[in-house]
């Protein structure tokens, strides 16, 4: 016999749009088990003051399982997995209290309000673990019949702050290795926005660091690691590197990140920062072209905060200049041997012209 669902978790954000659940999110969710058990023990004692000990097998009786995964974006039903199904069909009061405490703690933490006295620093740390895999556009909606609370990556930071007075989070940067000391086994990572992060070069990453550092022109790398922050959110100096990867020189996302980081004056003293939404539109467009087997382009920023996409194909040089605000694409082909040129402009907001543009690229660049 199944007892009623304990909680429902609804995940929102791009990764959940296809109603799927990335495995790294599950890693964070496993912390919920510890939270429930710890709070449930406290609440059981409160409801049963005469009992000196917890019932035998309390932890086993009260661990959580995912009983169902549904659409919307992605919805999980979480149930208490009692090893003795007949034990209870509806949640006992102390379990209802446990649920309320969880929801109230999430709700109160970001408002800096007080939370139940049973919440210890280690429980706060477990709450923080839930959100570690969350990306900036993502949220978990903890939903019950009476109350729904939202947990975001900011909530995760708030829990870290509350639990440790300092906190750490997973960070991912694109950039270059700007310093490397082989003897001291130290290096410095320089992000596209020109932030510097010293790190220890372990044996695992030495070859990649050397390849990136000695490469010319500068080889781009993606760094993933753990960064520590002080209680007031300031970055602590060093990063613990978990992964370091040499990027393909034509990696579209990394190149777009480079453009996002361009600051006022990037074009010989003129040039404004790019509009992020326009860059996102173009990135999606280019990725859709790649999915249609069009060769990865070289990308360059141009005057007026626009982008040029370029290829060398046989004896021709091809460029497509995007006017990002107008969403137009100007195709230009130059034949290197006979000097012939061909050009055409497409309005990409028009479906027919968009298809013609894609077909033109397919015919020319595949």
């Amino acid at each position, binding site marked *: 016999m199944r007892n009623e669902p304990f909680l429902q978790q609804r995940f929102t954000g791009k990764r959940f749009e296809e109603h799927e659940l990335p495995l790294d999110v599950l890693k964070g969710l496993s912390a919920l088990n510890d939270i429930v058990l710890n709070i449930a023990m406290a609440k059981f004692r409160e409801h049963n003051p005469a009992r000196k000990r917890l019932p035998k097998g309390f932890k086993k009786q009260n661990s959580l399982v995912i009983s169902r995964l549904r659409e919307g974006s992605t919805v999980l039903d979480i149930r208490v997995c009692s090893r003795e199904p007949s034990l209870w069909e509806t949640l006992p009061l102390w379990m209802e209290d446990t649920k309320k405490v969880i929801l109230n703690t999430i709700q109160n933490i970001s408002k800096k309000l007080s939370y139940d006295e049973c919440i210890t620093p280690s429980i706060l740390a477990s709450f923080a673990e839930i959100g570690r895999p969350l990306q900036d556009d993502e949220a978990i909606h903890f939903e019950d019949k009476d109350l729904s609370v939202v947990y975001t990556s900011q909530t995760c930071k708030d829990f870290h702050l509350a639990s440790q007075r300092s906190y750490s989070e997973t960070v991912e940067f694109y950039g270059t290795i700007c310093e490397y000391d082989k003897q001291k086994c130290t290096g410095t990572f320089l992000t596209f926005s020109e932030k510097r992060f010293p790190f220890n070069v372990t044996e695992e990453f030495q070859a990649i660091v050397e390849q990136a550092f000695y490469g010319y*022109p500068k080889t781009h790398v993606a760094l993933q690691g753990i960064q520590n922050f002080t209680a007031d959110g300031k970055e602590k100096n060093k990063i613990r590197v978990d992964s370091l990867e040499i990027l393909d020189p034509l990696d579209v996302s990394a190149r777009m990140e480079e453009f996002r980081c361009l600051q006022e004056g990037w074009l010989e003293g003129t040039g404004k920062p790019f509009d992020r939404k326009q860059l996102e539109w173009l990135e999606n467009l280019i990725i859709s072209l790649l999915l249609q087997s069009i060769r990865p382009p*070289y990308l*360059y920023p*141009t005057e007026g905060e626009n982008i040029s996409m370029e290829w060398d194909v046989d004896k021709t040089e091809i460029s497509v200049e995007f006017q990002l605000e107008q969403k137009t694409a100007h195709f230009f082909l*130059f034949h290197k041997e006979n000097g012939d040129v061909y050009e055409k402009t497409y309005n990409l907001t028009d479906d027919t012209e968009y298809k013609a543009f894609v077909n033109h690229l397919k015919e020319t660049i595949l």
Partner: protein
Amino acid sequence: MDSATLLYRHVDPVCHIQGDRVTSQLFRPMPKDGGCLSVDKGEILTPKESYDRFVKNGFRSIGILGVTVGECEEKNLEVREEPIPKNPDHTLIDYSQLSPPSQVKKVAAMLKMIAEERGWLYSEK
């Protein structure tokens, strides 16, 4: 300047190069500059001196590619000295006589080919 004088064009590490490929835009004038392209004349100035001054003046450069005055004139581009306070060797390649705009792109692509064939005059490597 004579026809053999080299004209230095600084390569911006983000705007002009990706991986090891340089864009033709390197030799394309921007509308903001009234159809002219800024270069440094290499009469006395060495590429290294040009690089050092450019960076000291607050600009980014990964190195220098160049064409000669003669190569510009063959494409009907006027080259004229235009010294400015921070750069007495500042020179302009004038594309304003070229039209339509596709002609500007074509000539810029040709100059890039010539410059790449010549190779890097200076690189920060």
